[in-house]
């Protein structure tokens, strides 16, 4: 069978740095081909070459057996290649139908847009994706991430794509949405569409992929049939070393209660939330996106101050109405969106780390650069941040190292309560286990950690206790020994069904 897309000997350099070195890759009709590798392994560059965003320096691209060179993404689209990016590239001000048909809308006889046809086709595509609830006239800006992703997929299908490339499609999806996405992907596969699936999440790959290709440092490591590999062997291929335990939570002595919430509410997103968090404990919060997990964290951190209820620190009620107050009370928050909320990307590592402790670093009101520099060096060593030095710009680091910088920034503030929102989202496996190890160590040192995660294995592996949220409420509390994918998953979906039935 002729592959839909076949790449041989692809090389690509940016400013003298080789990011891809003679890589081979192909996609056949009706298969899901997973592309794996740590961040910086060259996955993004490879899919951008397939999609015509970058041109390869060397090597050959064949589409349906024919050699091709794409000068721009438009040509790749014409050749039947569509890409669903990690950061969804939609236009909030345009309607659903327009987003789907941007740049290839049906035309009327005199060249204008055929709006009726466009809306009808959009409707049909969405129905095909089981998305009957989406209105083709709504502005995309008001939709959830999962819904936007469906629109991206519909957009790919509307271009008669024979190859759909998905870059970390589940990175910001909750468990339930992931399942639906998989259903959609399987349906596409049945129709003979070739799918390139880029993800860090091994369980998904085992659930979906037919073949898997691994890249490491721009080199091609190998392509395997999924049946030939195990989780462990894949990780070994990716990192070049074997990782014994993915989620190494070690026991830590559980101390006194540091943080307590009593009936805390904020609008409709956080309703009557009560919880306790002890020193040395990792408290996991599971739930779907929009279930109120992040919103609860934001309320504790003072971004969206509580409208009702009490927050107690060391048993004393406190008012937290700004992040400054939260910080001064010893609360740290490693946010969900690293690029937007966590890092000042153009600034250096040192400047990022010192943001939370500027006052402490200052002599008078002048920042002590020497102290700042040694603080950054200290953290680079402690957290194993791979960087040229404290003076390197944060944006040049890989995802895992960026996350470590954000963590370092908050550890610099010497918090007693650490909230981590999706601590390992979009991070490669190696860095992930490092961050997990760090979390364990921090807990052992007496830090109280509140961890929010969409990855069930992470929640189960790391948490001492698991809270499950839905509709802004805490709906279940499960102890570590009872926490299994079934119990937690049941708590998450049970409520959803109950609400849907109501």
């Amino acid at each position: 069978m002729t592959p839909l897309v076949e790449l041989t000997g692809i090389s690509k350099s940016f400013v003298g740095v080789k990011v891809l070195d003679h890589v081979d890759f192909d996609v056949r009709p009706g298969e899901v081909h997973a592309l794996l590798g740590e961040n910086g392994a060259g996955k993004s560059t490879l899919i951008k070459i397939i999609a015509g965003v970058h041109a390869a320096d060397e090597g050959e691209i064949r589409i349906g057996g024919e050699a091709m060179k794409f000068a721009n993404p438009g040509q790749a689209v014409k050749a039947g290649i569509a890409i669903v990016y990690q950061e969804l590239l939609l236009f909030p001000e345009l309607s659903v139908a327009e987003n789907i048909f941007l740049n290839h809308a049906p035309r009327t006889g005199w060249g204008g847009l055929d709006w009726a046809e466009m809306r009808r086709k959009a409707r049909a595509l969405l129905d095909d994706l089981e998305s009957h609830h989406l209105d083709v006239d709504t502005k995309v800006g008001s939709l959830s991430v999962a819904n936007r992703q469906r629109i991206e997929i519909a957009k790919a299908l509307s271009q008669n794509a024979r190859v759909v490339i998905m870059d970390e499609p589940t990175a910001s999806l909750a468990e339930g949405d992931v399942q639906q996405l998989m259903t959609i992907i399987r349906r596409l596969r049945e129709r003979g569409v070739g799918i390139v699936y880029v993800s860090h999440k091994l369980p998904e790959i085992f659930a979906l992929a037919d073949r898997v290709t691994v890249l490491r440092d721009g080199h091609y490591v190998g392509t395997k049939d999924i049946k030939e590999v195990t989780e462990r062997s894949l990780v070994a291929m990716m990192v070049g070393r074997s990782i014994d335990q993915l989620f190494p939570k070690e026991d830590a002595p559980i101390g006194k209660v540091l943080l307590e919430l009593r009936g805390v509410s904020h609008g409709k997103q956080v309703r009557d939330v009560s919880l306790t968090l002890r020193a040395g404990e990792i408290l996991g919060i599971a739930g779907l996106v929009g279930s109120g997990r992040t919103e609860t964290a934001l309320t504790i951190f003072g971004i969206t101050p509580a409208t009702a209820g009490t927050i107690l620190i060391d048993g004393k009620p406190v008012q937290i109405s700004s992040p400054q107050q939260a910080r001064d009370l010893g609360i740290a928050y490693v946010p969900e969106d690293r690029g937007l909320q966590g890092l000042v990307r153009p600034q250096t590592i040192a400047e990022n780390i010192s943001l939370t402790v500027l006052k402490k670093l200052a002599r008078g009101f002048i920042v002590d650069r020497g102290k700042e520099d040694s603080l950054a060096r200290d953290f680079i060593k402690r957290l194993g941040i791979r960087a040229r030095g404290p003076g390197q710009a944060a944006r040049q680091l890989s995802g895992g190292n960026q996350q470590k910088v954000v963590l370092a920034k908050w550890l610099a503030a010497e918090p007693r309560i650490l909230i981590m929102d999706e601590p390992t989202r979009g991070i490669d496996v190696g860095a992930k286990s490092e961050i997990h190890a760090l979390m364990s160590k921090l807990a052992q040192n007496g830090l109280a950690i509140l961890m929010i995660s969409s990855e069930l294995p992470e929640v189960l592996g790391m948490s001492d206790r698991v809270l499950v949220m839905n509709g802004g409420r805490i709906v279940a509390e499960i102890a570590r020994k009872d926490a299994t994918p079934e119990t937690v998953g049941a708590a998450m979906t049970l409520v959803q069904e109950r609400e849907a039935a109501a």
Partner: protein
Amino acid sequence: MSDIALPVRRPSSFARLFEAYGQEIVVLAAIVVLFAIVGLVNPRFLSDTNLTSIFSGNAYIAVAAIGMAMVIISGHIDVSVGSLIGVLATIAGTLAVSGYPIWVAWLVPVLVGIAINTCLGALIAYMRIPSIVATLGMLSILKGGLISATGGTWITGMPPGFFIAQARLFGIPSPVYFMVVLTILVALWMRYSATGRSIYAVGGNAEAARASGLNPERTCVLVFALHGFFAGIAALLFATQLQVIQSTVPPNLELTVITAAVIGGVSILGGTGTVIGSTLAAILFACIGSALIFLNVSAYWLRAVLGLLILATVLADMARRRRGLSP
């Protein structure tokens, strides 16, 4: 699981209209209220002669604001438009006086406007100079260049057929037709054509647009070229309104044009707004200018009142958007 049909909330048609054209409706309401109040105080305000002069005397601002609205929707800004209009009006007048056929005197400034702004657009799109910087530089170049070239001599003695803005059809001055027809055409084009929609897409998210196969650079150049076209038309209306062309840059014209576009609901952040809004806002300004005289607002306080009104409109818009955000 997908069997459960989720109830689709369909907002009422008015709510939808308001969602889509909120700012336009606010501005329109402001115009209506203004007409009602001033009309009550002094009925002459509503006389056809006054209405005509409100609409026709400021039509060139509305036409220039169409181009400005497109530029701002595409995520840029242009502070040089006032100087450009001054230059183009001078070119039109000079050609007419030098004995070229009238159609040449009409056509050349529009073409020059397109040419200058195409260069400007290329500078912004391909050389990555922020539009405010590029147009700030262009403002100086055009303004200084105009005075160097003309020495500020007034242009008089254009042939009678030249004065297109003084022509009337069915008793209505031609600038009104220009304003209305261009606004409607551009509004339809922006709303329903593929290129028009791509301007919104590029302004909303240039990188996403690129990944969708659009070419943001080309769109940027196109938008500036069109902006040059509208500046050319505005310059014609400006130049042919009176028997005399002042070959200088009209003071503060760029601020008026930008303000009209912005008050009309075009977000300075790009990606939203319509040219209907900008035209309505230009009309609102003309009304306010006229109304303040009719209401005997002390001339000394005129600009303060205007500033307050602008501020009030902006704050009202912000309040409306906030309400739109919370469910």
